[in-house]
């Protein structure tokens, strides 16, 4: 589905990614964990076309999409839920969802997607006419994921979906992520600081440190890995 080969990204003189390679297979949930500033968000932003890569390749369904503009990548069925949710706070919930389906011309498909989103996040249906800026953090996260699903993606990237959200809602949102993956067969690349949660719902994981992948394994194995345990899972 997605293959990243030796990706390098610089911010001016600062090297944020130093040759990152990873792979997400069809139907898989893969997670990228690491400390603050390790380059997790940078990786996602380079894949979805928000950042320019200096070198390396991003292959999506066998096609080279390196440095394609973001709005064209969406067309290929890839959706990115950015860090900090970035809902359109000045638009209503409905308008946010409609913008998610910006490239979809077929009204019946839009309606189907919207019904599906309401099935997963009934809360959004209750708040349809409300301006998104007035939603709680958790509701905004639901909206951000819902908006991303409106484009009918085959591949979804989630950046810190647990950030700034009440613990109870975090659990719900992670359950929904698994549901989206299993019911729709959408492949997922998940970036998360809460490594416990991320390793729990993902099949395969990569550990990023200062712009390099230092470890990769099945998540079950990573959770037992002493290095991962001490650095990311809070000791023990």
């Amino acid at each position: 589905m997605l293959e990243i080969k030796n990706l390098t990204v610089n911010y001016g003189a600062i090297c944020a990614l130093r040759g990152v390679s990873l792979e997400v297979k069809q139907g898989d949930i893969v997670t990228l964990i690491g400390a603050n500033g390790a380059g997790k968000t940078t990786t996602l932003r380079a894949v979805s076309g928000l950042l320019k890569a200096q070198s390396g390749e991003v292959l999506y369904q066998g096609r080279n999409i390196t440095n394609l503009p973001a709005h064209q990548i969406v067309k290929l069925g890839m959706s990115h839920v950015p860090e900090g949710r970035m809902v359109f706070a000045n638009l209503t919930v409905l308008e946010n969802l409609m913008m998610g389906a910006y490239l979809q011309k077929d009204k019946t498909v839009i309606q189907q997607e919207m019904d599906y989103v309401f099935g997963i996040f009934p809360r959004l249906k209750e708040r349809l006419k409300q301006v998104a800026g007035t939603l709680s953090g958790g509701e905004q996260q639901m909206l951000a994921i819902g908006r991303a699903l409106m484009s009918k993606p085959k591949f979804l990237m989630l950046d810190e979906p647990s950030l700034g959200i009440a613990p109870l809602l975090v659990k719900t949102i992670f359950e929904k992520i698994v549901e989206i993956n299993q019911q729709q067969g959408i492949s997922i690349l998940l970036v998360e600081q809460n490594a416990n949660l991320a390793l729990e719902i993902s099949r395969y994981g990569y550990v990023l440190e200062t712009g390099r992948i230092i470890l990769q394994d099945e998540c079950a194995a990573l959770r037992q890995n002493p290095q991962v345990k001490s650095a990311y899972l809070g000791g023990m």
Partner: protein
Amino acid sequence: MTEFLQQLINGLSLGAIYALIALGYTMVYGVLRFINFAHSDIFMIGAFAGYYLSKHFPRESMGGGLIVLAGAMIICALLGIIIERLAYRPLRDRSKLNVLITAIGMSLLLENAGQFFFGANPKAFPVLFPVMTIKLGAVVLSSNQMAVFIVTIVVLVGLRFIVMRTKIGTAMRAVSFNPVAASLVGINNDIVISFTFGLGSALAAAGGILYSLNYQAIDPLMGILPGMKAFVAAVLGGIGNIPGAALGGLLLGVIETFFNGSRWSTYTDAIAFTLLILILLFRPAGLLGKAQVEKV
């Protein structure tokens, strides 16, 4: 009382023109966060486009007038799109100051090109619409003022519809709030920005023609003062806020007209800039603007 109403109508008709120009400043600011200083010269080009087009259509006729108006709006829309494409887009990722300076350069270019091609001497603007005066009691409404009101109302309602009800309008608001998020849902920011420039420039052209109908003389530097005042109107209403620009324009027009009718009329042109200073001191976000608060 009659005089008050008469002045109010005069003020609103001047204010409506400011509002039309102010909308262009505010919409472009909304999506790009910069002031397009060449906007006032697009207003001037709109007037000249009307002047030259009117040679080919019947004067003092409703149909001819509307064709000239629509033609000038289309010409300016295209001009606005071309200016953005050639002058501003290449600088999109640079510091805002670069674009701002380019906009001032573009303004000077249009003014001087105008003097070169149209001549520096003022030209008499033709009467486009049928002449009549409407009397409401003792208050007199000229056909030009009627044209200003009707065109402005139609344009404002149309603009409201485009921005609030259509897909491209919603995309404009989305890009204005967060261009990164907009590109992640598949919105091509370039297209939305072009559209915004086209729309704003068309409104400026409408303003240019209505202004010229009322003042009857046009020259290549005619845009400078109304343009600056419309900019003040946009700031007054809250820059980036569309209803704010309309309100700011009307308010400024009325205030100016009343000032003009008083014994301080010499200072009429200064009032707009005094207002600008006051608003920046006491309510920098403008009348309808909200101070930006980020939610975490």
